[in-house]
């Protein structure tokens, strides 16, 4: 065995998986996991832990995997994370824990994410559940949103003995894990529903179909329903569009709409909600959400092009996602930017006009600014355009909560170390505070806020 290299992991063949919604990565077997765990150097000063937003004791759980003590490994992860089966699949490990792994200096980093996933899946298969708190504190905390930030915050507070209720606006718990990330990357029943069940097993109650700011306000929760603290983890918000001609034509969708129809409403399973799958689809954008939309359209039978204004090096999506998308047959039109959506007489998309770009001087983000190449416009045929350009905050909660401060970008203002907002007893974290980011950063914020809420209520 070459210790410099990872134990390879099996994946569904690219040609086969491009036509189904089954999970791409099949995960390690017990023997493979034990072998990979053997590559961990068990560093005295583990850099990987400092790279993890929720500070999982990584060497300790890997040591238990090495010893085939998988239940103990699960316990160690559960001390820090409420959603290991999710994180093992969707965290950008290459820039976090694995990015700091000493093994990675000369060879390949230990596959920490894949090992975390293995442990979580093993626990689910063997029906190992996290244990609820033995002593209850008799204090009620409300958590708004059941996405990664909310589930993490609720789980941590329940473990401390709080009486926690999550309020979810949609009909199903999970937030972006359910409506955003597709089945082939994060199975809903096998993984997300199980993780939600685990949080419930800690004693957390989940009330769906409650939209805070409309069905009930934060002030009412605190004044009338007896909640002593509130955590806002309401997520990202309204989809952005480019503002180019033709954007309201039939066949132009936000990635949020396309993915919600497919993932939450399960259009791919032929539930009642329709989806306009498209035959020739252009996805505009280069983030993880753009990759998800492109690979979804591909599976629904379309030829798919990603149009992105910078070059491959600047793609914000994870390398693994770009690699998977390419393997499956998504075509990348890089250094290209849309200028107009072409519309037929009946109001449907018939194509998209784009212009070639070149990279100029670095901009504020440190990435080289894309500049239009004069006279390089051309047309691409398409019947569907999916805009994946990020989101802007939903004003619903800030506009209905007295004394809750938002910044210029309309994101909720909250302290990074404990989630405290400008309003007493109200904490916030995740995309509602930072703007669209990652699952694990939201979880980190949920975790910090749980600690902040605990400190606040203990002093109160």
């Amino acid at each position, binding site marked *: 065995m070459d210790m410099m290299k990872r134990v390879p992991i099996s994946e569904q063949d690219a040609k086969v998986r491009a036509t189904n919604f089954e999970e791409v990565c099949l995960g390690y077997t017990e023997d493979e996991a034990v072998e990979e765990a053997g590559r961990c150097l068990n560093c005295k000063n583990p850099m990987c832990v400092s790279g993890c937003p929720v500070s999982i004791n990584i060497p300790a759980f890997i040591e238990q995997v090495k010893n085939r003590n998988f239940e103990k490994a699960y316990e160690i992860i559960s001390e820090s994370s409420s959603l290991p089966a999710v994180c093992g699949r969707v965290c950008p490990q290459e820039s976090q824990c694995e990015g700091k792994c000493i093994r990675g200096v000369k060879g390949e980093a230990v596959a920490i994410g894949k090992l975390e996933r293995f442990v979580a899946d093993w626990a689910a298969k063997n029906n190992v559940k996290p244990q609820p708190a033995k002593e209850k504190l008799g204090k009620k905390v409300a958590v708004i949103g059941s996405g990664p930030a909310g589930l993490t915050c609720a789980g941590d507070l329940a473990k401390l003995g709080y009486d926690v209720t999550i309020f979810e606006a949609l009909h199903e718990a999970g937030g972006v894990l359910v409506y955003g990330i597709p089945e082939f990357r994060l199975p809903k029943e096998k993984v997300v529903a199980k993780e939600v069940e685990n949080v419930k097993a800690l004693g957390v109650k989940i009330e769906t179909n409650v939209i805070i700011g409309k069905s009930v306000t934060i002030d009412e929760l605190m004044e009338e329903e007896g909640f002593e603290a509130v955590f806002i983890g309401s997520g990202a918000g309204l989809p952005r569009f480019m503002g180019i001609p033709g954007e*309201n034509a039939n066949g132009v969708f936000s990635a949020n709409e396309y993915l919600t129809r497919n993932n939450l409403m399960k259009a791919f399973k032929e539930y009642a909600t329709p989806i306009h799958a498209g035959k020739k689809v252009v996805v505009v954008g280069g983030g993880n959400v753009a990759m998800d939309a492109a690979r979804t359209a591909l599976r629904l039978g379309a030829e798919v092009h990603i149009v992105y204004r910078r070059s491959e090096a600047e793609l914000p999506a994870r390398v693994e996602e770009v690699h998977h998308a390419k393997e499956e047959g998504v075509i990348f039109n890089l250094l290209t930017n849309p200028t107009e959506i072409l519309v037929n007489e009946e109001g449907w998309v018939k194509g998209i006009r784009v212009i070639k770009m070149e990279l100029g001087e670095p901009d504020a983000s440190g990435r080289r600014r894309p500049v239009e190449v004069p006279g390089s416009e051309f047309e691409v045929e398409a019947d569907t355009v999916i805009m994946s350009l990020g989101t802007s905050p939903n004003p619903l909660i800030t506009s209905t909560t007295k004394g809750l401060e938002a910044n210029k970008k309309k994101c909720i203002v909250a302290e990074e170390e404990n989630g405290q907002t400008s309003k007493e007893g109200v904490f916030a974290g995740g995309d509602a505070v930072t703007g669209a980011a990652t699952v694990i950063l939201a979880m980190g914020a949920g975790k910090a806020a749980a600690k902040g809420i605990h400190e606040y209520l203990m002093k109160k």
Partner: protein
Amino acid sequence: MYQIVKSEKLNANIYLMVVKAPRVAKHCLPGQFLIVKMDEEGERIPLTICDYDREAETITIVFQPVGASTEAMTALKAGDCFMDVVGPLGNPSELVTDDLEETKKKKILFVAGGVGTAPVYPQVKWLHEHGIDADVIVGAKTKDLIILEKEMEAVAGNLYITTDDGSYGRSGMVTKVIEDLVAEGKQYDVCVSIGPMIMMKFCCLTTKKFNIPTIVSMNPIMVDGTGMCGACRLSVGDEIKFACVDGPEFDGHLVNFDEAMKRQQMYKTQEGRALLKLREGDTHHGGCGHCGGDK
């Protein structure tokens, strides 16, 4: 689960249901909508709230089947349940949130078409309860399709009913009634028009002639209804608005109805388009992009 406490067929194709939904009933105001989902595999269907009872914790919805999902809803009886009901969504009507003393100074005209009579009702009722009597025009294709006549009569100042075929009340479309009322010397400071998009479009063209500011309630396609998907976007003047969070009521003189009507057809199958043409009958003047009526 959200139990249906009353289910009634108002006429050949309009249904009324009273549903237990405590959180919605406690907070809703005229002008807002909710979303219902029948069962596990169901669509999320946005419907305007037509009445509410805060004590009984119920809300009333009135709907007309326009596709497979709403057709399936017609089978629900009292005692059955919706799996999901969420709301209230969108903003309340400006008439109920504006300064009451200012609103009292205004002469208000409501123009309701077909199933749109139902969402007009709570607004007229709210105004009546606050000492304001508004004039109401209710239009339908024929006598049998008039709904909530008695209820509306009890809360409206003057009620003008019109049918396209002249089988009841005045004869002709709602736009003709507006013109007649103005010709009779009536003056209005504001008009609220709710009904099929095509009716709202022509109503706005008429009120524009008389410089009557007009509010319309838009009911575009939605998925989540909470500001996440952008399916319900509309052009209002130079701006793109989301009906779910910015609306559902907008300045009718600024709404791009032709675009909105095209977008409403996005998921219609040929069969569904046929159904719509059948339902809208002579009031369908094109704009859907498929019937050829606008060429």
